[in-house]
């Protein structure tokens, strides 16, 4: 049986997540410790900033769940209350569904984000390294990756950015096409400006200039980007060079006036200029937007785009849930089929045993036959056995994948006296 126990951003506050995360990270042999618990056969440990989960294959439902809960609670030194309210348990189809949803980023805080799949893959790699997974979890993970891939390609869940800084990058691409060789001017050394700058560089932009009131802070940020720092008084000259300007100072008035932009446009021969004003109160005079070839976006404009994209993702998530459901059904029927496998194997080996012993008994008269004829008799016996076994095996597989293996497997064990 597949079990999934853990907590995430929806069930546990940050403080609890931190405690458990730190506790689990400290543990050197977490996976082998879980495997030492009675009845646990396979295990996988997923930990990200938003979730800590154990996925196990185990027998003995309730006892095992208790043991696993205790294990997590001890590691994270959670109180009984915390463990009770924060930890969730999923069994069988629910656990499968949850795993698929996690991998497909449907359970993430920012739905559709791409990092989670990488983190799940890394968790699987660790488990493989320590030989902690087996037949059931290996397939579960491969199916999770497949589901995630399907969700990414068949729905537009990750198509449009849902963070302000990425929305700015997307806009820059709509204006400039390729960002390679584009020059960025950061006005103010704020965190948001830095983040947006990082994304722009990641998308090919090359030169960064930082203009700041305090030169120490500006220089530090400029060094980080291998750019240069200038004083706010040199802004006009910098505006002529820049293609993308990101402003985020704490100044009370406008740092860049429409007039200064109008003048710089003449000097920059009307090259397109993308202005991002993420400061509140605003740094760039709003009327600058009416200047030809100037595109000014403030924080509200960007937030509107983000909101719209978020709404789009929620719509796409419905399609994604349908894909997850399909995959759960497929995986579940494989799991059920698996329950019939031991019986099928012992049925086949019983038949094989009978064939061997009967052939040995007939060795005396068979020696009179030529080599070729003996082979023919061999084949004949084998094919009779196979034909007889074909129907019960097929029915067992079908029945167990569609309904349950219990009844049919018991019947077969009884009919063929497999347990004697």
């Amino acid at each position, binding site marked *: 049986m597949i079990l999934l126990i853990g907590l995430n951003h929806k069930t546990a506050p940050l403080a609890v997540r931190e405690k458990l995360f730190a506790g689990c990270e400290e543990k050197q042999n977490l996976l082998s410790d879980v495997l030492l618990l009675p009845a646990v056969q396979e295990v996988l440990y997923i930990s990200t900033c938003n979730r800590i989960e154990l996925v196990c294959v185990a027998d003995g439902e309730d006892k095992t769940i208790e043991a696993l809960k205790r294990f997590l609670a001890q590691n994270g030194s959670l109180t009984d209350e915390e463990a009770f309210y924060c930890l969730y348990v999923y069994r069988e189809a629910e656990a499968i569904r949850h795993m698929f949803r996690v991998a497909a980023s449907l359970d993430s805080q920012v739905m559709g984000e791409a990092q989670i799949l990488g983190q799940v893959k890394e968790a699987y790699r660790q488990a493989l390294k320590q030989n902690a997974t087996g037949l059931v979890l290996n397939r579960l993970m491969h199916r999770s990756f497949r589901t995630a891939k399907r969700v990414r390609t068949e729905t537009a869940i990750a198509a449009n950015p849902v963070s302000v800084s990425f929305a700015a990058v997307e806009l820059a691409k709509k204006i400039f*096409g390729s960002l390679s060789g584009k020059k960025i001017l950061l006005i103010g050394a704020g965190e948001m400006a830095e983040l947006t700058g990082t994304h722009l560089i990641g998308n090919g932009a090359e030169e960064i200039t930082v203009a700041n009131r305090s030169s120490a802070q500006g220089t530090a940020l400029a060094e980080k980007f291998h750019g240069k720092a200038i004083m706010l008084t040199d802004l006009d000259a910098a505006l002529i060079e820049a293609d993308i300007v990101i402003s985020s100072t704490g100044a009370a008035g406008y740092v860049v006036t429409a007039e200064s932009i109008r003048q710089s446009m003449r000097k920059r021969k*009307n090259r*397109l200029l993308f202005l991002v004003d993420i400061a509140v109160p605003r740094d760039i005079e709003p009327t600058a937007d009416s200047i030809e070839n100037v595109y000014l976006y403030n924080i509200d404009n960007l937030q509107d*785009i983000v909101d719209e994209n978020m709404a789009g993702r929620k719509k796409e998530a419905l399609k994604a849930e349908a894909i997850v459901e399909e995959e759960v059904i497929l995986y579940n029927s494989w799991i059920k089929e698996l329950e019939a496998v031991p019986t099928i194997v012992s049925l086949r080996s019983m038949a094989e045993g009978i064939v061997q012993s009967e052939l040995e008994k007939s060795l005396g008269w068979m020696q009179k036959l030529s080599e070729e004829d003996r082979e023919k008799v061999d084949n004949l016996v084998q094919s009779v056995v196979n034909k007889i076994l074909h129907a019960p095996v097929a029915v067992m597989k079908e029945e167990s994948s569609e309904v349950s293996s219990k009844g049919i497997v018991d019947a077969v064990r009884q009919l063929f006296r497999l347990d004697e």
Partner: protein
Amino acid sequence: MTLFSLEMILFQLALAFCILCTFGYLLSLLIKRVILAKISTWVLAISFCFLTLGLVTVILNTAGLTNLGSRNFLVFFAWAGSGVYLGFQLKTKTRLLGAFISPFILLLMIAAASQEAGKSLLPQNLQSWLTTLHLVFAIIGEALFVLASCAGAMFIIQNSLLKHKKLGKMSRLLPSLSDLDRINHLCLLWGFPLLTIGIIAGAVFAGMVWKTLLPADPKIIWSFAAWVIYGFLLHQRLAIGWKGSRMAFLSCAVFILFLVSFLAVRFYFTTLHDFI
């Protein structure tokens, strides 16, 4: 099979693929999926190949390009238009531009189909390698201006979406402003000298036949005006630095102006170019 029927078959194939790609492009604009525009670009490339083969058979048929009728004039225009567009597709990712240029190409081809082959040919006394030169360069130059205007039209749409902060499906579908401006720039840059060569060839020929470089003919006057205005635009772009929305708007306006005047001259005036 004679060369003439081969020419007809090739033209019909080109027309069929052109209709297909125009539908594809317009549909991709409608359902806002760029993949359809990508496929349509390949369909247009097939149509272009058939047009090229068709033109080769025309040249073999008439032993050179000196005897082009109005039908082949239109076919050649369509060929130049799609060739220039496809050329740009090698360098830029502006597949959606096809949605603007392909209806124009299709109209040219439908117009060509409505003309009987071998009719209203160039009069005997006007056939010369100079008129061929005049025709080829003027048409390629004009095809480039058509593309410049299409890119301009798309720039206007994208610009207005971005200015109104509407980063919706449409804006995501259309190419970036820089790419569109670059196409507008390159088309003017190449179209102008080509048209200049075409006009000079025409003028030299006019000088030889009518003893004047610029006969007082409505079509010639309009074309000359077009040449002057495009020259002015190119000058403003290169020397003054006009870019982006202003250039896009002007090239569209000029194009519409000349399309209207061309049609007016075509139907209400008698000109020296009546065979076109």
